[in-house]
């Protein structure tokens, strides 16, 4: 999946995560994570974000995420939504499990 524009999903309210995905020059994912629970779950959230992007075939993007204690399923949903928006793609494959 090719990121072509800025895509955003989620909010910065409690138990949610705001995910912003932008095109990046060159390969790789640049991830900035701000989290209220960075100490305990920072690594886990990052793994979910990267895993979700990988499952969508996104290999190049700038990702900025502001987490307010979202569950993994929420993180995954927000990342997917933001990625589809940033790819201007409406052929959703919601059932595609990792």
């Amino acid at each position, binding site marked *: 999946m090719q990121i072509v524009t*800025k895509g*955003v999903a989620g*909010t*910065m*309210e*409690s138990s949610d995560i*705001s995910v*912003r995905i*932008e095109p990046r020059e060159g390969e790789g994912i640049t991830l*900035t994570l*701000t989290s*209220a629970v960075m100490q305990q779950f920072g690594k886990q959230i990052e793994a979910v974000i990267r895993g979700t992007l990988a499952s969508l075939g996104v290999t190049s993007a*700038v990702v*900025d995420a*502001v987490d*307010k204690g979202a569950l993994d399923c929420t993180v995954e949903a927000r990342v997917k939504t933001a990625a589809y928006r940033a790819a201007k793609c409406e052929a959703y494959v919601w059932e595609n499990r990792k």
Partner: protein
Amino acid sequence: MELETGALSAARENEIRAFLAERGLTMEGGADYCAVLRDDAGRLAACGCLDGSVIKYVAVSPAAEGEGAAATIVSELVNHAYREGKAHLFLFTKPGSEDMFRSLGFHPVARTGDAVMLEDRRDGIDRFIASLPKAEGIKGACVVNCDPFTLGHRYLIETAAKACDFLYVFVVSEDAAHFPAKDRYELVKRGTADLANIAVVQSEDYLVSRATFPAYFIKDRVRAEDVRTEMDIAVFAGRIAPGVGVTRRYVGTEPYCPVTRAYNEKMRELLPAYGIEFIEIPRKDGISASAVRRFLKEGRLGEIETLVPPTTYAYLKNLA
């Protein structure tokens, strides 16, 4: 609590003005979009506005504090801005609120004693600095609006470029001027194409003009103008100049506009502390962008021809 969003109608504006005033904040100018939270009785509990690419007027009542009201408001404003296609957002606040906005995904650009400037991407300003051309030797900079580019600007740039090894010409990217930012930038580029040791670059949103930097959170209204100027200087002298090794700032003398003159005086006072020399170049008599705009309005193209380079003249002739 109920979230309500939309344009800043007259009724909402009055409500927000009163809400801000209760918190010692001053409404200054309008906004494109606002988000408010109301309590069960319909009273304002929190508010925030989006004005161009700037988030402002963020305030929360004591009763709603600690309940994520600010997060709701800022989320809504940020998401709205992205939906509208805005790629880069800014926010200015008092130092005590920096942490709160950092937790909402904003990253500091520059600080003064009274204010912090934040942006919505980490390393945004570092990436801007990295995108600037690199040069050797003594480097100078001038920041120009060029609305439009005249022989006066040309004289300033040429004189400054002769006095140092390399000159950065930052063209303010804000669209509050009479001519669009893209056109102003193009005209500076074309009108200086023969100068080898300069780089004409768009300031993006980093060299913020006084118009876009809201100072509503500054309680001392007399200080507000100074605070804007100091922030602008902190961004230029504290971040951009050291990033590319600029040690001189060139300006033209300002005989007419008191605001610009006060701004220059502030730079004269503050720049040395940043290790930057402030150099004023005497302005060319009788040439001003405002005169060019007046002649254009009156259709006096002949007079314009004597005030601007051929490249600007060709552009203006096409408009007339």
